[in-house]
C-alpha cells in the first residue's frame, strides 16, 4: 500500500497522502451500518406509491374509496392533498406529486400509508384515477416539432435561478463560442464530422431510494433519507410542500451509493406530507422497478460534431451541436447542458470553437445528474474525433493529444485560467507506463480481434457553497462538522484526514458528525466531484482558524508571542526551536473552556468564485453557471478483444493516469477511478434504459444489465499524477467523476482499432459492432 510519500511540500505528513482505512468500514463489514431501509421508528407506517400509466394525461379525478377501505391503511393522498409548491435546482417546475396532469409513465399520482409495506402496496393498486390522455412527446424530435404538445404550458412563468433562454418544449438553450469557428475550418486541412448518440443510463446504486419522516408534537418534521445533500433535500421538500424550512430537519443515514440519483428529491416530499397528515412516522422504500421508473436517468444526448485539424495534427476548430432529452422535469438538466458544452472543446487548445445546445422537455422520466454530468457523452464524440484525425494522419493517439494539450494556465474554453494542470504529465505517464509500452507482448486470444484505445478528459471539482466547523473538545479530540454526505465514496475519511493533518493530530482523534441541517454548515451536496476540493478546503481553513485560536491562548499560557508557536505532531503546540516548551492541545482546550467559556471552534465557508467566462475571449448565452471550479485531468487507455463471431467486446485491461492535485487517500483515489471506469464500461457496452412510447421496457436488473465481476478486467491500473491545486486542501482536486469521462471514447477507439470501423452510438452492443464488422453483403446472409 502507498506509503504516502509524494513529491509534495507537506512535511511529516500524519494523514494526508496515506491510504488509511475508511472510518466506517468496520460497521459496513459487520452488517451494523444503518441505511434508510434499516431505520425504524415507534408506530411507524409504511408507504407505497401509485404511478401513472400514461406518459401525458390530464387527471380528471380520483376514487380512493377502495384503498381507504383496506384494513391497516391510514392515509391515501393524491395530488389534491398536497400543497401546490414547485421545486427544482435550476427551474422550479416540479410539484411534490403529480397535480392536474401526469408527465411521464410512473410519475407518482397517489401515495398510501399503511401498517406494513405489503398492505400499502396492495391498497395503492386499488386507487382509481380518471385520466384524459393527451398527446405525448416522447422524443426530442417530437418535442421540437411544430405544434408539439407542451409538457409544461407555464414554462415562461416558472422561477429560474439563471437567465435562461426557453420556449416551447425547450427548457434551456445555451450557446458558447470562442474564436471564429468558420475561419478555423477554412484553415483546416482535414475535417471530421459525425453524429453521436448516447442513451439513458440508470444509476443503479445498489440501494434503492427511500425516506423516513417523523413529525413532533410542535409540528416540526425530522426527515431521514437516502440523499447526497441534506440541504437540497430540505430545499426541495420545503419548496414543493410550501413548508417553512425551519420546520424541517433533514438528516442522513449511511448511503448505499448515489452517483447523482440521490442529489435532488425523490420520495422525500411524499413521506413528509404523509407524516404531516397521519402524525405518525412514515417510511417509503422504492422497489427496484420504481427506482428505475420514477427517479432519474443520465441524459440521452444527440451530438453533431465537426473537428478540423492541420496536416501536422494541430487542432484548429470544433463545432458542436447537441440536443439533450431532459424528460418531464428540469431537475439538474440546465446545468448538464451548460456544463457539457463547456467541456465540448476537451482539454485542448483549439483556437476556434463553438457549441450550441438545446435541452428539451419530453414525456419521459426526468434526466438528471449522473456521474460525469454530460461530460462522458461529450467526450465520446470529441475523443472519437481526435482519434479519427490521428488515424487519418497517421499520428500516435497519445502524441496527437500531447500536441494539442492545454498547457500551463490554459485557458479552458471560454477563458478560465488553470491554476493547476497535470494533463501533459497524465499523457506522458500513460505513454511511458511499462505495461502500456509492452501491451502487444502477448498475442490476443484466438477468434478475437484485439484493439487498443486512448481517450482523455478533464472534469471540474467545485460549484456552490460549502463550509466546515472544527470543534476542539476539552480532551483534545475534535469533532468535524461539514454537512457533506458520504455516499460511500469515502469523503468522511478524506475530510478527517485533512483535519487531522491541519491540526497535526492522529486521525483517531477526529470524529465526523453526521450531516444535519440543524447543526451543519451549509453544503450544496456530494456532487460535481467537489467534496474533497471545496469542503476539504473549508476543513483545512477551519482547522487553521482553530490553530490561530490555540496559538493565541497558548501564547498566553507559555508567555510568548503567538507567531513563535507551532503545532507539533501528536497534538501539541510549542515554541519554535524550543522542543521542551510545549502544551498538549487538551490543556489548551481545557483552558479555553475555563477562561473563554467553551471550546475552540474554527469555522470556514467558501464558494469557488473565479468566473468561467472571460467576456474578452468568449461569448456565452443561456449559461447556467457563473463559476464552475478547478480542473482535474485524466488520460485513459484500454485493451479490448472483440469476438469475430458475435461482435461482443471484452475489456481486458485499463490504464488511467489521473491528475488529482494531491491524493489525500491514494486507495480512495484508485477506488474512484476503478468504480468510475466500470460504470463507464457499462455505459459504453451494456447499459441502456430502453423506452417504448415513453414506457421503460427494462425497469429491472433482470433486463437492465450492469457489469458483473466477470465483465470487467481485473487489470485496472491507476497512475496518480499530482499537479498541486493552490486552492485545494494540501493541493487536492476532485476525482469522483473523472474515471468514466474518457471511458466510452477509450473503448470506442479501441474497437475502431480492432475492427477498423467507428461506432458512434452507445451502447456498443455485439449487434452494432457486428454490423460494422461485416461487409454489407454478409448482413443479409440469413
Amino acid at each position: 500500500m502507498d506509503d504516502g510519500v509524494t513529491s509534495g511540500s507537506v512535511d511529516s505528513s500524519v494523514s494526508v497522502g496515506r491510504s488509511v482505512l475508511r472510518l466506517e468500514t468496520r460497521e459496513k463489514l459487520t452488517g451494523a451500518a444503518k441505511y434508510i431501509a434499516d431505520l425504524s421508528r415507534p408506530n411507524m407506517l409504511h408507504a407505497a406509491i401509485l404511478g401513472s400509466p400514461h406518459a401525458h394525461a390530464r387527471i380528471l379525478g380520483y376514487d380512493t374509496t377502495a384503498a381507504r377501505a383496506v384494513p391497516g391503511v391510514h392515509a391515501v393522498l393524491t395530488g389534491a392533498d398536497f400543497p401546490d409548491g414547485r421545486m427544482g435546482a435550476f427551474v422550479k417546475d416540479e410539484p411534490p406529486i403529480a397535480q392536474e396532469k401526469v408527465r411521464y409513465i410512473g410519475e407518482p399520482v397517489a401515495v398510501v400509508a399503511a401498517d406494513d409495506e405489503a398492505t400499502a402496496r396492495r391498497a395503492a393498486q386499488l386507487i382509481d384515477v380518471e385520466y384524459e390522455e393527451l398527446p405525448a412527446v416522447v422524443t426530442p424530435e417530437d418535442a421540437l416539432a411544430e405544434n408539439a404538445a407542451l409538457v409544461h404550458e407555464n414554462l415562461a412563468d416558472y422561477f429560474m435561478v439563471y437567465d435562461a433562454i426557453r420556449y416551447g418544449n425547450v427548457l434551456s438553450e445555451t450557446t458558447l463560442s470562442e474564436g471564429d469557428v468558420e475561419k478555423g475550418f477554412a484553415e483546416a486541412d482535414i475535417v471530421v464530422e459525425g453524429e453521436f448518440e448516447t442513451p439513458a443510463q440508470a444509476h443503479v446504486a445498489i440501494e434503492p431510494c427511500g425516506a423516513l419522516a417523523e413529525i413532533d408534537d410542535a409540528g416540526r418534521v425530522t426527515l431521514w433519507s437516502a440523499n447526497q445533500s441534506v440541504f437540497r433535500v430540505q430545499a426541495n421538500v420545503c419548496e414543493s410542500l410550501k413548508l417553512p424550512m425551519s420546520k424541517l430537519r433533514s438528516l442522513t443515514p449511511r448511503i448505499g451509493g448515489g452517483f447523482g440519483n440521490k442529489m435532488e428529491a425523490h420520495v422525500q416530499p411524499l413521506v413528509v406530507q404523509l407524516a404531516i397528515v397521519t402524525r405518525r412516522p412514515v417510511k417509503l422504500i422504492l422497489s427496484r422497478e420504481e427506482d428505475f421508473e420514477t427517479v432519474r436517468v443520465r441524459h440521452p444526448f444527440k451530438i453533431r460534431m465537426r473537428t478540423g485539424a492541420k496536416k501536422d495534427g494541430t487542432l484548429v476548430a470544433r463545432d458542436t451541436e447537441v440536443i439533450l432529452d431532459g424528460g418531464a422535469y428540469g431537475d439538474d438538466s440546465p446545468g448538464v447542458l451548460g456544463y457539457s458544452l463547456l467541456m465540448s472543446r476537451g482539454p485542448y487548445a483549439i483556437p476556434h470553437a463553438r457549441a450550441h445546445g438545446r435541452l428539451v422537455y419530453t414525456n419521459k422520466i426526468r434526466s438528471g445528474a449522473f456521474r460525469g454530468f454530460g461530460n462522458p457523452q461529450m467526450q465520446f464524440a470529441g475523443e472519437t474525433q481526435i482519434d479519427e484525425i490521428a488515424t487519418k494522419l497517421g499520428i500516435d493517439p497519445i502524441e496527437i493529444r500531447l500536441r494539442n494539450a492545454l498547457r500551463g494556465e490554459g485557458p479552458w474554453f471560454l477563458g478560465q485560467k488553470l491554476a493547476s494542470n497535470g494533463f501533459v504529465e497524465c499523457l506522458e505517464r500513460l505513454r511511458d507506463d511499462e505495461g502500456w509500452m509492452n501491451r502487444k507482448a502477448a498475442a490476443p486470444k484466438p477468434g478475437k480481434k484485439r484493439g487498443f484505445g486512448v481517450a482523455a478528459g478533464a472534469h471540474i471539482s467545485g460549484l456552490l457553497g460549502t463550509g466546515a466547523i472544527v470543534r476542539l473538545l476539552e480532551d483534545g479530540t475534535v469533532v468535524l462538522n461539514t454537512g457533506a454526505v458520504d455516499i460511500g465514496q469515502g469523503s468522511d475519511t478524506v475530510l478527517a484526514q485533512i483535519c487531522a493533518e491541519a491540526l497535526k493530530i492522529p486521525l483517531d482523534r477526529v470524529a465526523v458528525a453526521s450531516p444535519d441541517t440543524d447543526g451543519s454548515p451549509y453544503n450544496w451536496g456530494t456532487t460535481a466531484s467537489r467534496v474533497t476540493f471545496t469542503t476539504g478546503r473549508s476543513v483545512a481553513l477551519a482547522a487553521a482558524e482553530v490553530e490561530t485560536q490555540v496559538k493565541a491562548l497558548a501564547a498566553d499560557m507559555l508567555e510568548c508571542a503567538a507567531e513563535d508557536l507551532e503545532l507539533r505532531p501528536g497534538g501539541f503546540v510549542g515554541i519554535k526551536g524550543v522542543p521542551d516548551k510545549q502544551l498538549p492541545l487538551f490543556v489548551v482546550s481545557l483552558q479555553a473552556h475555563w477562561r473563554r467559556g467553551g471550546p475552540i471552534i474554527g469555522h470556514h465557508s467558501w464558494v469557488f468564485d473565479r468566473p468561467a467566462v472571460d467576456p474578452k475571449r468568449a461569448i456565452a448565452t443561456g449559461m447556467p453557471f457563473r463559476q464552475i471550479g478547478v480542473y482535474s485531468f485524466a488520460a485513459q487507455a484500454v485493451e479490448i478483444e472483440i469476438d469475430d463471431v458475435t461482435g461482443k467486446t471484452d475489456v481486458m485491461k485499463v490504464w488511467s493516469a489521473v491528475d488529482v492535485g494531491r491524493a489525500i487517500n491514494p486507495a480512495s483515489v484508485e477506488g474512484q477511478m476503478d468504480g468510475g471506469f466500470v460504470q463507464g464500461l457499462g455505459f459504453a457496452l451494456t447499459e441502456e434504459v430502453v423506452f417504448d412510447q415513453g414506457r421503460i421496457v427494462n425497469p429491472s436488473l433482470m433486463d437492465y444489465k450492469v457489469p458483473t465481476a466477470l465483465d470487467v478486467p481485473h487489470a485496472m491500473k491507476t497512475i496518480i499524477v499530482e499537479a498541486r491545486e493552490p486552492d485545494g486542501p494540501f493541493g487536492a482536486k476532485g476525482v469522483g467523476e473523472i474515471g468514466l469521462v474518457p471511458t466510452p471514447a477509450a473503448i470506442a477507439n479501441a474497437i475502431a482499432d480492432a475492427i477498423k470501423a467507428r461506432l458512434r452510438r452507445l451502447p456498443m452492443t455485439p449487434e452494432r459492432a457486428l454490423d460494422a464488422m461485416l461487409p454489407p453483403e454478409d448482413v443479409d446472409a440469413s
Partner: protein
Amino acid sequence: MSDGIDIALTVNKTARSVTVPAGETLLETLRERLALTGAKRGCNQGVCGACTVSVDGMPVRGCLSLTANCAGAEIVTIEGMATDGMLGRIQAALEQTGAVQCGFCTSGMVIAAEALLRANPNPDAADVQAGISGNLCRCSGYRTIVDAVLLAAADGRD
C-alpha cells in the same frame, strides 16, 4: 395453514421461531421480524445479490427463499460472520484492500466469497470473478474485492 406457519430455524447459531405467511421471504423475516438488517433488499428478484445469506452452508438469495420452506435450517447472515469482534477472513481482507465503499453489497459479497473459498481454497482471479459474479457492486469496479478474496485465500495458506 393460511394464516401463519410456525417455523423454527437457527440464525447465527441462535434458535429462533417465527410465525410467517406462506409468501414471506427469508429476507423479510430476517429484516422485519428478527431485526437482522445486514442483508439488503436491492432488487427483490435475485439479481443483485445484496440479500445473499447462507442456508445450511450454502449461499442463497434471501429474497428468493421462502421462510416457510426453511424449517430447521441453519441460517448465517453477515451479523454472524464476525466472532467476538474478530472479523472473518473475507471481512478482514476486504478491510485490508480498501474494497468497501458504500457497503450496500458488502453483506452479500462476504457470504458469497466465503462460500467460494470453502469450495475452492486456491482460486485465481478469474475463479474469484466467477464466484462473486452474482453479487453486483456499483462502487468498487470489483478489483479490490477480487484482491481481497485472493488475499484471504493466501492468508489461509500461510
